[in-house]
């Protein structure tokens, strides 16, 4: 039965350990297949011995067997020999595992470093730079350059979360009062889904994010653009939306750089319009889903910390229009 896993290596998937797109996930899958191959051989051997053993001797009498002592000794030696073989296999696999571990956790001093802070139930992403003008904050979406090692520093603002992008590398926990880090290199451009892997409360199921691996020059352009403050809306509806954003309390929790909105509780929305998903990977970024989310976040993600605000439909449209312009 373990063989049934092998053809699955072909399975593609945006969030799959079987479709590696990173140096680390590649190495892990290689280690996994070595283990799988040996495990399959062992399991099949056990089942074959079991079946032969079952069919070997027909029952002739219900009486218990009289034991044949020399034969017992031979059997005992076979059992001990197999035990020894198990020990050798186990030690061999330990070495294979340690080699894989060294590769996966190798550190590169020149890695691009960003900081990720877990919240119930969203991800804060900080691109920090020695020059404060080059630092900015975003949420739920991580853009990285391909081919370059990326180091994420992981912290938690509340409970334990776990950062996991199976296509790129294995997971690492975000723990209160402790700084963990994880390093990975994306081999090719693409969108890779990640998800919180440690149970973190009511909306653990809806704490996803996207990793967008971009060619380095495109990443550089994005970073320059992202670094800027939000543009002021050009049209009347947008201006009304910006004003309502503050007036209706959105700005108490959310920051939009370059405006008076400076709340720290929820995700930074400075360039929210350019993201691919909203509500921590729960919905695709479309006008309809953004509207539905603002209108009643508790319906979509029950128990999350964004309250339902009493908005008239005109107000909702204005805020929606404003947010969509934030690119």
């Amino acid at each position: 039965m373990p063989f049934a896993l092998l053809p699955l290596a072909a399975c593609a998937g945006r969030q799959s350990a079987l479709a590696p797109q990173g140096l680390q996930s590649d190495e892990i899958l290689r280690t996994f297949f070595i283990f799988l191959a040996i495990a399959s051989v062992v399991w099949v051997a056990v089942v074959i011995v079991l079946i032969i053993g079952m069919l070997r001797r027909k029952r002739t009498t219900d009486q218990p067997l009289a034991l044949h002592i020399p034969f017992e000794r031979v059997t005992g030696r076979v059992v001990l020999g197999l035990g020894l073989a198990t020990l050798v296999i186990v030690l061999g696999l330990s070495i294979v595992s340690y080699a894989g571990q060294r590769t996966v956790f190798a550190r590169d001093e020149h890695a691009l470093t960003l900081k990720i802070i877990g919240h119930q139930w969203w991800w804060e992403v900080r691109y920090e730079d020695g020059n404060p003008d080059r630092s900015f904050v975003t949420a739920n979406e991580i853009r990285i350059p391909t081919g370059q090692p990326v180091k994420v520093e992981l912290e938690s603002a509340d409970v334990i979360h776990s950062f996991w992008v199976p296509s790129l590398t294995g997971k690492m926990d975000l723990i209160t009062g402790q700084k963990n880090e994880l390093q990975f290199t994306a081999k090719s451009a693409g969108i890779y889904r990640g998800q919180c892997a440690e149970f973190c409360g009511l909306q653990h199921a809806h704490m996803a994010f996207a990793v967008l691996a971009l060619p380095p020059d495109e990443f550089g352009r994005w970073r320059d653009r992202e670094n800027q403050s939000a543009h002021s809306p050009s049209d009347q509806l947008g201006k009304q939306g910006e004003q309502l954003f503050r007036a209706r309390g959105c700005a108490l929790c959310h920051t939009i750089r370059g405006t008076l909105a400076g709340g720290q509780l929820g995700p930074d929305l400075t360039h929210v319009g350019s993201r691919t998903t909203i509500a921590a990977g729960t919905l695709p970024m479309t006008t309809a889903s953004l509207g539905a989310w603002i209108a009643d976040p508790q319906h979509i993600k029950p128990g999350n910390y964004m309250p339902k605000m009493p908005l008239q439909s005109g107000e909702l449209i204005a805020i929606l229009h404003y947010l969509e312009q934030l690119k």
Partner: protein
Amino acid sequence: MSVTADQRELRDDALNGLQLSTRLDSLWRTPSGFLGALMSVDHKVVGRRYIVTAFVFLLLGGVLAILMRIQLAGPEQTFLSPDKYNQIFTMHGSTMMFLFAVPVMEAFAVYLVPLMVGTRNIAFPRLNAFSYWMFLFGGCFLWISFALNVGPDVGWFAYVPLSSLQYTPTKRPDVWAQMITFTEVAALAVAVEIVVTVFKLRAPGMTLDRIPLFVWAMLVTAFLVMFAMPSIMVASTSLILDRLVNTRFYDSSSGGHPLLWQHLFWFFGHPEVYIIFIPGTGMVSAILATFARRPVVGYPVVILSLIATGFLSFGLWVHHMFVTGLPQLGAGLFTASSMLIAVPSGLQIFCWLATLWDGRPVYRTPLLFVIGFIVIFVMGGLSGVMVASVPIDTQVHDTYFVVAHFHYVLIGGAIFPLIGAVYYWFPKITGRMLGERLGRWNFWLAFVGFNIAFFPMHILGLIGMPRRVYTYTADMDWAHLNLLSSGGALIFALSFALLLVNVIRSLRSGALAGDNPWDASTLEWATSSPPPPQNFDRIPVVKHREPLWLDGESLPVAAGLSVDRREVLLTSLAEAEPQTREASPEPSIWPLLTALATTVFFIGSIFTPWAVLWGTPPMAVALIGWFWPAGSREDEE
């Protein structure tokens, strides 16, 4: 008084068979009536209750599992709210681990070990009764809380800080933590009883190398319980203190650390797996010897493997914490130590395969379950070797791959042997056979249903499905495999329904079993089915590892126990030479009253620390009642 005890008391050698049997029966019988039932200290009565209660919890935990599988059968279902789902998976895990798996194994030990070592009752029978009541009250407390919507919802692992007051201000984690304490009390009490029963109450001549393998397994398990349980006791009590009186064991902002919880929890939690699995191996050894019609190959190898497994199980808890950012070299060493446990486990498997190979197997239902156990457990063990590897674990940790792995280990390693054990010992416990045809249906549905339910989860984990999520979206490609898994779960559930039908039918009209329906070799089959209150009219003397096969009808017996009072024979630790006669306690209501007082104290302490003050006097009163010296023969002399 001038007469000596020897002159006054009547010994069993002075009576003929029928007189002795009648006299012992009335001496050891549980008092009649409802009150009498509450007072019982007979290990068979308590053991039977324990087994039935644990199976009721299995049923409840199973219903929860089906509810979860319905919710996950398709993407974005709204059958369960996230809040309900979190309560349900927490209750499922807690029920299965704390209210079913450990208790049911200890329950079988409570029933079987005294019979298998040839004594009249378990050591400390009142403690045994107390242990059952604590287990019952703890279980009811948890389930009543769940029914009242205050069931725990932070996982059976209850990681801080999620379970701290700050992030879960309700009483739910307190309910969970106190239930842990209840079951710890029960489990520790039974562990002590088993150790003393095995070491001191064995039949004369049952030297260490003649102890049945099931008894050895339970002995090792009892030691694991004694060393592992205190760790979770420290953990859960610290959690309650953090929540109730504002200590800071787990609060990183005040010098505590959340990882302390994980170390304490898994230092208990991993041995816990072996506390469940090792009794399963004992059942396998017992069943296999009987149906392969020969002793298990490598008796000393099996025992040394059990002991090695016990020791190693304490050295690998860190593999649950590979992704918490511990130092890499240390984690690598825990990979090696975790994989090393495959060696003793493997040796046991090889011994069983050799037993089957060399034997002349009789394929009855218990043996089918043992064969199913080997097929499933080996796969679970091998995926365990994968999970032990740091790099592989960073991908599969907290995904459905792990869910698949530990269900293969726990259901394959414990439930399959356990159901085999139910078929095997049911005739001894009830005097009636379970139906063989239904038994075969039961086995095949369980085997097929189990694999359909759990095998796809390996793949689900690898293609990215995390554990403990109440839903997922259609575009994640997880829908088909989840539907398959849910279908398998229903088949698996059906197999338990068949078991229930079989049990009910057989209780009413099953074929009468007789003393030894399987022609087995160990001492529990040397007495009638069900056994009389005194277990054995005359204490057997053991001359071989397989007394009933080698001595059969002419099983030698020892004489000299009093028939005026309840007495058990104490023997020496290694050679089991008779040492002294010891009084065995009379039935008493005080264990029940003590358990009630303890329950009031535990539940009270969820709500106020003052329960420590007003909760202890009733416990003290109950304990004084329990230990109030009865007028004994020695006093009169």
